[in-house]
């Protein structure tokens, strides 16, 4: 199977989040041989007015014969899984991709936004209740887990409106929202995992339970991975605004070593908590991340 991935730059040009979510999700689903929608346990849920683009196989022709109108059968799988989408909206998520310019900006926050939108779309397609939580010490946006198309639209709208600001909040500030995330569920935590006092790790540890499956998605860019800078550089921290003047050539080796240690430490922490950690490069196609996730899940299964 040859998978055609959508280039992140292409995604950045299209500002329509619902369209992107649908396109990526359908492309993702189209590549799967085994549809997760088929099989036993799929029950009729409701009729919905036909919309252009709906599969013709879903049209209830008997109802059409009776009413002379097109209606689509919507099925609902027996499921009590809540899908939670947690997005880190601290300033460090504004780190840009390396292959962008002034006209097409693409950063970790955008990537996380589109990734979660796609996941929300997929979850809604499968009838899962989906909730969302965006986290920074300046803004916390919470949407409870609900199913249905209207709720999906709310999630997509919320994702589109998200702004980055400040730092990742401490556990105390989000305790209420964390407590709402419970029950049988699947939690996606999308962040770059830059933390001062292990706030993100503590949050994840409070989410992990026998009923809740947590999947951590660490976002990184090519610049962070390869450190391609040259000459005298003044680095400014996106969260603290502290500046550091270094010779990039001299700092590179030191940085790469620190980064490797950081990743190793994160791997160890996630493994201890039995959390699946996925690394996503924002300079690579978004749907590739989904497939990598799928492959990883299959291997675990």
């Amino acid at each position, binding site marked *: 199977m040859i998978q055609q991935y959508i280039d992140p730059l292409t995604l950045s040009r299209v500002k329509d989040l619902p369209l992107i979510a649908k396109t990526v999700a359908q492309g993702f689903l189209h590549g799967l041989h085994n549809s997760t929608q088929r099989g036993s346990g799929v029950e009729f849920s409701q009729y919905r007015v036909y919309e252009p683009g709906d599969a013709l196989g879903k049209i209830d022709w008997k109802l059409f014969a009776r009413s002379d109108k097109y209606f689509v059968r919507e099925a609902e799988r027996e499921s009590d899984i809540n899908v939670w989408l947690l997005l880190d909206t601290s300033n*460090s*998520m*504004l*780190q*840009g991709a390396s292959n*962008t*310019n*002034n006209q097409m*900006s693409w*950063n*970790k926050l955008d990537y996380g936004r589109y990734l979660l939108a796609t996941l929300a779309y997929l979850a809604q397609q499968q009838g899962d209740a989906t909730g969302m939580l965006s986290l920074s010490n300046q803004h916390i946006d919470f949407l409870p887990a609900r199913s249905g198309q209207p709720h999906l639209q709310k999630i997509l709208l919320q994702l589109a409106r998200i702004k980055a600001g400040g730092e990742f909040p401490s556990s105390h500030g989000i305790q209420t929202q964390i407590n709402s995330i419970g029950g049988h569920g699947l939690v996606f935590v999308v962040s*770059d995992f*830059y933390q001062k006092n292990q706030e993100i790790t503590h949050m994840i540890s409070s989410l992990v339970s026998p009923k809740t499956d947590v999947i951590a998605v660490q976002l990184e860019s090519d610049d*962070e991975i390869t450190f391609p*800078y040259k*000459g*005298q*550089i*003044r*680095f*400014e*921290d*996106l*969260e603290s605004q*502290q*500046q*550091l*003047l*270094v*010779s990039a050539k*001299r*700092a590179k080796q*030191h*940085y790469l070593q*620190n*980064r490797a240690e*950081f990743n190793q430490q994160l791997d160890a922490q996630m493994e201890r908590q039995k959390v699946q950690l996925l690394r996503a490069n924002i300079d690579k196609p978004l749907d590739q991340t989904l497939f990598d996730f799928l492959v990883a899940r299959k291997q675990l299964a």
Partner: protein
Amino acid sequence: MNPLANLSVASNIGLLTLLALAIPLTIHLFSRTKGKLIKFADISLIGKVQQKPVAQLYLTQRKLLLLRLLLLVLLSMILSQCVWQASTTNSTEESATLVSPLWIKMASTEQKRSLADELSKSSEEQNVFLLTESYPTLSREQLLSPTFATSLQPQTTNLWMRAHHFSLLNPYITRAHIYVTNSLQQFIGSKIATSMIYEWHVLPQTQQSSTELNVEIIKPINVLLILDQDKQGDELVSESKWRHALSIIQHQVSNKLEIYDVSAAEYSQQGNYDWIIDLSQQHNISELHSLDSLVKYEDLPHFPLLLAEKLLSKQQFNLDLQFLKVTEEQLINKSEKALPSQSSTQRSAFNTHSSPTKWLYILLLVCFCIERIYSERTNLRNASFAQKDVN
């Protein structure tokens, strides 16, 4: 051989502009505090790299700095008027041999053979020139040929001027051996100072009769008599008397007088005459000729004497030329006269140096364009980094 060794400057003051090199060096050295601003997610991973002590300053944007330094160096070279001294193929200076026509005529066969042998030994046979207007090369055969010597017609000339002109046309030749006689008629005119080093080889001239010298003093003088058709007139314009007077003059001077006559009605301006004596009654010929060659009616009583005086003084002058000589000191001593002002073509021919100024200007323009383009690209790149981080 180092090509830069031939580079020299005409104006040392222009080199002072090299001091301006310190300006871009200082700017680039002390602009290190700016650096390129990049917003990064977490600078703690970069760590604290030890800052350089003041003694170890770091040059920023080295390529741009090099371009700017090159611009200043080129400007300095243009202002200091760099010249490139043309190097000769041999390490020694080039020399030439100049031989005057009179020397060839007067020198004996042994002297000519000796010169030819000397030139063969020193392998300078290609650089032998005849000191005439076009400076033709002189081969060994021509030098030794009696026929060639006979064909030459030495004229009253200024050999100093000829030698100087030769040096202008051949700037790569710095030394010349000049073979001349010491006859004054070869040095009529001012002595010219020149940068070429001359070695004079003077052939002392023995007394020669005018018949042995094929010089212009024996050119005949053409006299035209304009007569009336009917040959009437007063005694003053009597043709027979004039012919008699002219024949007396002819015997006194060495110049041959050729006497022609024509009637006034048939006279036309054609013909090259040294003297035109108007014996006709019409007296309107004067409008057609310059006063130097025409003897007017009013001057007729005095003219025979005037003509005789002129001819005799010229003859004396030419005789003097035959017998008066220049001394060796007069030949060798440098002239105190300044070099004559040169036209641009002469100046370029005279220059032993070539000026690379034109190429320096072109190089300066090219470097300036590259520096501007590179500088703009650097600024745009820095701006895009800043913009990307803001977004």
